[in-house]
């Protein structure tokens, strides 16, 4: 994949930061309405992401527009998950799905904290490769977290398996692209 682009002013980080603040607001509202702590986990993560987006390091190397599109599609894909047929959920499956979502988003939050100012949606090289925190043990903990969080949707509606598999494939593509960015940059030095 083509991976080089001239360094430009990163105005998109402020857009990303605003979007995350909006998501956090929605989550806090949902928490206030329902009392469910999960929304507080979500809003906490969104606020952290908002902060790191605003402070984000400039990208030294970016991926192609195609890769960026894939990344944004991957980010928005969870919105397509189906609810239980006719709204009839099985309680145990709902419990399993909720717990998987909480665990998954905890991992995502930790990964966001570890990534810090290197955070981004589309693959890019921002400084050195992160190797601390969760990144010491797993190459792409954020995708692992999302994968765990979304797994519960299969319990809610069996047809979600296709969306889930698509999501996993897109995560793999993004992870490969990110790894390639660092590998090729390392070889060029």
């Amino acid at each position, binding site marked *: 994949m083509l991976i080089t682009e001239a360094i430009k002013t990163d105005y998109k980080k402020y857009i990303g930061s605003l979007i995350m603040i909006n998501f956090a607001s929605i989550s806090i509202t949902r928490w206030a309405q329902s009392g*469910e*702590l*999960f929304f*507080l*986990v979500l809003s*906490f*993560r969104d606020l*952290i992401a908002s902060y790191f987006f605003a402070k984000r390091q400039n990208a030294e190397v970016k991926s192609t527009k195609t890769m960026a599109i894939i990344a944004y599609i991957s980010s928005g894909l969870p919105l397509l998950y189906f609810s*239980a*047929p*006719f709204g*009839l959920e*099985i*309680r*145990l499956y*709902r*419990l399993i799905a*909720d*717990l998987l979502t*909480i*665990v998954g*988003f*905890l991992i995502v*939050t*930790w990964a966001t*904290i*570890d990534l*810090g100012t290197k955070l981004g949606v589309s693959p890019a090289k921002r400084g050195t490769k992160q190797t601390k*925190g969760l990144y010491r043990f797993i190459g792409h903990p954020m995708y692992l977290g999302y994968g765990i969080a979304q797994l519960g949707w299969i319990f809610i509606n069996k047809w979600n398996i296709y969306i889930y598999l698509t999501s996993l494939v897109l995560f793999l593509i993004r992870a490969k692209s990110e790894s390639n960015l660092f590998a090729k940059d390392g070889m060029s030095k």
Partner: protein
Amino acid sequence: MKMTLKVVALLLAIGASAQTIKSYADEIASLPELITEQETVLVNLLNNGKAELREGNEPQVVLTEEEKKELIIKNMVHYIRLIEGKEILLEELQRQQFPDLDIRGILEGRQNPGI
């Protein structure tokens, strides 16, 4: 700073998990009572044809046939939700067979309309 944020996230996740498990346990614990209550409502609806909607000194509400049907169906669906009979309901709807109906009676009725 990062460690503090991680600890806060972990505490929130533990709290959310505990809350989720407790909600589930409470729901399961109250299920038998809820099912019994719903069965009572359904039996009343099917037997009396009137909803026991009055509270205190309010007069009993008399329903039309359409309102009665709607109320029965809604309460049946709620009952099926409670007993988690979703799969069986969907299978029955897809199969479109009604083994408990008196098919013979229906067919005989069509042959002998009684005119």
